[in-house]
């Protein structure tokens, strides 16, 4: 082997060793980021919907409605400690932000992790308007049951902490949407602290089938 070939081989070997070292360091770094850093959803939420803090905030228990542990079709209340404002609009934003971000387990989640509450208003007649990002519609599992559980978790959580809201209108990115994810009608209002409409007693059947 000529001297030139020996030098080239040596340089190549040095480069390979350096590459392996750099690759291992890069893997460690990526692994660290994935375990310790915020998720994409969390990072995005920090930018789009920063933590809401008001001068009147006090730490108080708040009842949240997520999926019951081990259940795919029922909600259950969970009480957590939240820093809550006395202003009903700010308080509503705080509990909905917690509803999105603080579910005990991913399986108990009722709203997509990427969803954010863009705006929240309360009108003098007790009508609340919640404007969510597109992710609420795009990432809620399609189906009557799943969509209703999503709406139900929002209205029941609001009812538990903000007693002045009578009904809720849900907007998607500032617009009225026909449905949440293809089924549940978003063109109307959802009762929050209003007693449910009376259910008519079923009339006894006239006759049985032939």
């Amino acid at each position: 082997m000529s001297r030139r070939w020996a030098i080239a081989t040596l340089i190549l070997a040095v480069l390979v060793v350096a590459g392996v070292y750099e690759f291992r360091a890069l893997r460690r770094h990526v692994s660290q980021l994935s375990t310790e850093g915020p998720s994409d959803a969390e990072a995005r939420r920090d930018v789009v919907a920063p933590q809401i803090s008001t001068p009147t905030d006090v730490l108080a228990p708040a009842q949240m409605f997520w999926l019951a542990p081990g259940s795919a079709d029922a909600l259950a209340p969970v009480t957590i400690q939240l820093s809550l404002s006395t202003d009903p609009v700010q308080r509503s934003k705080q509990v909905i932000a917690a509803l999105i971000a603080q579910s005990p387990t991913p399986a108990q989640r009722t709203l997509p992790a990427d969803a954010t509450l863009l705006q929240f208003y309360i009108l003098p007649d007790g009508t609340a308007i919640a404007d969510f990002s597109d992710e609420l519609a795009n990432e809620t599992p399609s189906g009557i049951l799943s969509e209703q559980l999503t709406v139900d978790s929002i209205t029941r959580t609001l009812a538990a902490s903000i007693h002045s809201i009578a009904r809720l209108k849900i907007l998607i990115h500032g617009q009225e949407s026909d449905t949440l994810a293809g089924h549940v009608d978003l063109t109307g209002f959802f009762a929050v602290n209003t007693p449910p409409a009376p259910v008519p007693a079923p009339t006894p059947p006239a006759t049985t089938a032939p």
Partner: protein
Amino acid sequence: MIAAGALLAHAVAAPQTIPPPAAPTAPAAAPTTAAVTAPFIVILDPAHGGADPGAHGSTGINESDVVLSFARQIRSALQVQGISVLLTRDADIDPSFDDRSAVANARDHAIFVSLHISSTGIPGTVRVYSLPIATPPPAAPATMPSAAGLLPPPVAEANPHPGLRTWDNAQDSFLDLSLRLAQLLQTQLTQNFRGSPPAPALVAVRQLRTIAAPAVAIEVSSVSVADRRQLDAMAGPLSDAIVHAVISFEPSYVSGAGSASAFAAGAH
């Protein structure tokens, strides 16, 4: 399209679970074959289709495929009983909500059954839904500091043609009948599918709102099953339950309820 003024008129109640019928009435025995054509028509609505597959399972199950298969099997079971049946779609297409509603609203004495498969829920169970009764807006302004004035309070738009139905709220006149149909269906389905709830639920299902006839949605759980055959196996008991419930429902509907034909001009 939805008339803007009508949007505020149909307040939606919170979901309610309703008690099952006091006296279960569905015939226990298999329905007899009717000698004559029944005086009503069943509109089966396989949801989604075309570019909209609906719920999609991890094993590749599409809601739109399964519900179309269900609808065809249910159609056969109903026709055997002499009951006329129409499907809102009989191919892989996706009619709009209004197109599907038009199939029912153009006919007297229709019964509308929308078929769905859920993304979630306990596999093998079936739920029935009808629309809740509309709740009026809050009576008096609540006393609270808020973003008052940012948006005008909603005002319900009066129907300029009393006696005629508006397309957007066509279901309003049929809520009682829909609830009764839902109760009969849920009773039958709970017998056939263990673990299903004992009573139907009142939920604001968009498709039902524009139906001027007794209308329910049936949702089977779920596209998350490992094998499509698990869902296919539900078609028979599902058909039986629907046949029983429809036959039980007929007397209370045909003898007393009106038809779908009159709509307020300009509402659609």
